[in-house]
């Protein structure tokens, strides 16, 4: 039996926050599987670099530089993108930020910004993308949650809340869009080697590592494998689920 090496050939994907880390890895993986990728990031040089990496390998990618937190702008940009690419099958809500602080000292802006990008951003993008997916009776929406939504993390009440919110959003949207053969799932990574986790102080890192049965952080490419799996046409019976990717840090 021949394996189709480009199962996403002819499909179009929008990956938010794809200028670096997990987002970039996902964009590259989806391209590898044959998709045309729209790379979104607020960091234009980083986003354009992801596009270049894809084009250097003979792929097709476009850069779009909007903030997922701006509702109206997202609706307009996604509509433009759908016209430009003549469709959209895959949305990966990956754009996310941290504004760490213990809650008793957290400023309202730190709370609001994280919710706005991480959670409301996912709403804004899913709202826009669901239109064409419902029309075509096909879609894959994947959002990034986090192990901290399950374990909690001191200093990250805002981040953890936004990532837990992604789970409720994923489950509800999965139920709404199921009649249209659109699957909606989430991925909850643990400690992954990216710019976001580079900032973790050494002592804390050592502590976390002790609790990871596999004894190492994960790689962005490993998260991308899970995202790619969920995007496959063959994964159409998996919906409303959270795939945990944490080296055994949390078993659930």
């Amino acid at each position, binding site marked *: 039996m021949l394996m189709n090496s480009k199962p996403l050939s002819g499909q179009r994907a929008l990956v938010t926050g794809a200028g670096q880390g997990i987002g970039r890895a996902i964009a590259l993986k989806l391209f590898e599987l044959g998709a045309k990728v729209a790379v979104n990031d607020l960091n234009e040089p980083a986003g354009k670099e992801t596009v270049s990496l894809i084009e250097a390998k003979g792929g097709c990618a476009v850069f779009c530089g909007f903030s997922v937190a701006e509702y109206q702008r997202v609706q307009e940009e996604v509509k433009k993108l759908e016209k430009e690419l003549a469709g959209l099958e895959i949305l990966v809500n990956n754009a996310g930020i941290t504004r760490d602080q213990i809650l008793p000292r957290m400023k309202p802006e730190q709370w609001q910004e994280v919710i706005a990008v991480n959670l409301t951003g996912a709403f804004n993008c899913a709202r826009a993308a669901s*239109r064409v997916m*419902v*029309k075509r009776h096909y879609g894959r929406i994947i959002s990034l949650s986090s192990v901290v939504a399950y374990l909690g993390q001191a200093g990250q009440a805002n981040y953890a809340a936004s990532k837990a919110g992604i789970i409720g959003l994923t489950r509800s949207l999965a139920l*709404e869009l199921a*009649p*249209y053969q659109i699957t909606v799932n989430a991925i909850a990574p643990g400690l992954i080697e990216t710019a976001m986790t580079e900032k973790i102080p050494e002592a804390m890192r050592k502590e976390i590592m002790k609790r990871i049965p596999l004894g190492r952080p994960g790689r962005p490419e490993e998260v991308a494998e899970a995202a790619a799996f969920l995007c496959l046409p063959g994964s159409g019976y998996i919906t409303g689920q959270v795939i945990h990717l944490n080296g055994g840090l949390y078993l659930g």
Partner: protein
Amino acid sequence: MLVKDRVIGLILEHLEVEKEKAVPEAHFIDDLGISSMDLWELVLIMEDEFNLEVPDEDLEKIQTIQNAINYIEQRVGKEIPD
């Protein structure tokens, strides 16, 4: 073809509605038992059929079959080519 007939045609084609119940005064959700998602999909289908876009604000206006007919007629007229 009359827009009115085409709209009712689309409703019968795409929603699980008995022909006798598909009267202009029928309220999609209250009388025909249509879900919000199905109603929204119907609007998307009408967008494609009549080649127009229904902005979010206008969605509120479409609660009954007559609302849908009126809305489309306002946008494209009472008749469309067959």
